């Protein structure tokens, strides 16, 4: 009963379509012993960009593979298998953030690094420099993106998570507030501190300067 209504709600299947579906799924889903070699690094990189600690990332990849193993039947072949895996990992990362943030305080401590960027009167101590970067050109990918990733890794936990979820993954701020259990005011504070630190870090790495320091 349940299965039938479920299928009708999902999408009605004509005769022959069911076997087509199985075929599509089989084409796209390689057997499990190949998963680690084919998708392990991809999933690890996805996690690594969002979660600072390597060991945590490896654990998240493992959880993802195990969940995929258990729920293989849910893969219907409507997207690439890698996309399906990343979808699982995405949920695992959100859970991971949620678990970590359970005892987040209501008030954010001051950020001395950001405080140090401005004078008592709120003026720049060190004026921003001009960056010679064209977002359309190839230097963006080869120079800026790796730098940005390194700088993101150096952010304090809470700021990094806020930046990752809101800016990188473009999640709605209500959702991000819930995941990180912070008020919207605090989310804005975390985001602007994150940007100021990233800006500073990128500049220190020599972004858009001639003879930039690569790392």
């Amino acid at each position, binding site marked *: 009963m349940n299965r039938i209504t479920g299928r009708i709600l999902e999408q009605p299947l004509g005769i022959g379509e069911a076997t087509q579906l199985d075929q599509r799924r089989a084409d796209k889903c390689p057997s499990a*012993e190949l998963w680690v070699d084919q998708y392990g690094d991809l999933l690890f990189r996805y996690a690594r960009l969002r979660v600072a600690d390597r060991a945590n990332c490896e654990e998240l990849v493992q959880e993802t593979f195990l969940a995929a193993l258990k729920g293989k039947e849910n893969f219907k072949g409507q997207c690439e298998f890698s996309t399906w895996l990343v979808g699982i990992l995405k949920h695992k990362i959100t859970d991971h953030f949620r678990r970590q943030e359970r005892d987040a305080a209501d008030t954010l401590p001051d950020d001395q690094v950001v405080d140090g960027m401005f004078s008592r009167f709120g003026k720049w101590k060190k004026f*921003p420099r001009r960056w010679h970067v064209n977002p359309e050109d190839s230097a963006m990918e080869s120079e800026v993106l790796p730098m940005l990733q390194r700088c993101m890794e150096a952010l304090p936990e809470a700021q990094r998570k806020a930046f990752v979820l809101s*800016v990188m993954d473009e999640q709605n701020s209500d959702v991000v507030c819930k995941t990180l259990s912070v008020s919207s005011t605090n989310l804005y504070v975390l985001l602007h501190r994150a940007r100021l630190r990233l800006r500073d870090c990128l500049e220190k790495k020599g972004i858009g300067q001639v003879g930039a320091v690569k790392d």
Partner: protein
Amino acid sequence: MLKLPKILNCRAAAEMSCRRRDGQLSHWDRATLAVHLIICAGCRLMDRQFALMDKAARQLAFLNAGTKTSENDALSPEARKRLKKLIR
């Protein structure tokens, strides 16, 4: 009396520049920020740099699946071995 946008300092301008990107900034605050950006070259650069950083971050997320940005970006041999034993 005519109400003019108050003069911001750079720190507050940085906050507003971000707030404009992340949520809502009232018309009044937008005007206040715009005035500061006219008179302050440093914050003008900052404002553009924030835009570039956001764009780069989204690009990073998008490209991530296919790009390896450093040697650290792969599973360690130990983890690979452990996973292979587990996933079959």
